[in-house]
């Protein structure tokens, strides 16, 4: 197996809740654990078919984790159906991983928490680290025995909507954090190369701090230590004593940072604004900051 940089073990990184992360080694040791379901969720929805962690099921974020008609996350009943059809019961430990250092795996994590699934973790380093370490891949779809699943009503304390953000822009009662690249934040580009969801205007929501999502990861895709993460956020004025709203372009990079702030650093009030810049940047008359 290929050697990668030596990461500090998860339990030694000082996280507020280290139980939300597992290592690639842990996953490799639980491939046949009947209480564990591994799920791959990628930005590039064809990645799963090119090889995946043995036994993992693949979720397509654009068709299975989004309402196909209304712009929204999937409703409660559809979520319960997806979980059950994926062989997930209410007591199953769900291990999520994906490409781009877990962008959409974190988005799926956020949805699982919205609907009250207790045992859900991210594989630290995601698909990239699994490949880099030369671990086993499978081309075979997972054999899944459907389970019965009951979803809770959505916990909307984890989600910010447009009126919430509009109120914060006026009151400055919460920290707004933009996880996009500096080029998107300044309006130099409307969306990253090759990604189709865009908007009419470039720039950012007034008062937002720009902390690109990738700052929280090491070169091998694993998360930095709690001390390093605190320095990044608190250095930009995003402190645990104030509510935080994260946003990006469509809500996936911001769910990655939401995960860091809420679980790795233990901030008490963190919401993900999944409408993000593709909502705000298309609004007629919305205030925009652009240097």
């Amino acid at each position: 197996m290929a050697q990668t940089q030596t990461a500090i073990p998860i339990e030694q990184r000082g996280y507020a809740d280290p139980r939300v992360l597992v290592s690639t080694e842990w996953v490799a040791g639980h491939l046949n654990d009947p209480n564990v379901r591994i799920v791959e969720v990628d930005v590039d929805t064809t990645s799963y078919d090119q090889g995946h962690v043995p036994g993992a099921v693949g979720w397509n974020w654009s068709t299975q984790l989004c309402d196909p008609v209304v712009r929204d996350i999937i409703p409660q009943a559809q979520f319960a159906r997806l979980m059950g059809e994926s062989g997930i019961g209410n007591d199953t430990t769900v291990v999520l991983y994906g490409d781009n250092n877990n962008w959409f795996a974190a988005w799926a994590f956020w949805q699982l928490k919205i609907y009250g699934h207790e045992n859900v973790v991210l594989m630290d380093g995601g698909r990239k680290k699994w490949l880099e370490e030369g671990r086993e891949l499978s081309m075979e779809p997972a054999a899944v025995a459907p389970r019965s699943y009951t979803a809770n009503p959505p916990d909307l304390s984890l989600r910010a909507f447009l009126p919430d953000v509009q109120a914060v822009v006026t009151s400055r009662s919460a920290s707004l954090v933009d996880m996009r690249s500096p080029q998107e934040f300044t309006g130099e580009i409307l969306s990253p190369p090759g990604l189709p969801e865009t908007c009419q205007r470039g720039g950012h929501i007034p008062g937002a701090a720009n902390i690109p999502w990738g700052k929280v990861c090491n070169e091998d895709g694993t998360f930095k230590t709690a001390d390093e993460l605190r320095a990044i956020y608190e250095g930009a004025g995003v402190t645990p004593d104030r509510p935080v709203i994260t946003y990006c372009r469509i809500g996936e990079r911001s769910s990655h940072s939401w995960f860091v702030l809420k679980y790795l650093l233990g901030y008490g009030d963190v919401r993900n604004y999944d409408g993000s810049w593709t909502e705000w940047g298309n609004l007629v008359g919305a205030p925009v900051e652009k240097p």
Partner: protein
Amino acid sequence: MNTHDYATRDLEIHGWTVRVTSYATGGRYHASVESVDVGARFARADGATREEAESIALDKARERLARTPRR
């Protein structure tokens, strides 16, 4: 099957710094290109050799970057 020959390198295309990653599985090479600033993969290709896979992926990357307007 296992992955092997994992490699990355950085290049500049149309003013963007991109990272090319390639590896082999089951006798095929897979290459992808990501924007370093954004951290997102935006081009991918397969091939019988590393050179073939990277060449096709980089052609796609050049085309997509050329179509990404800067303001």
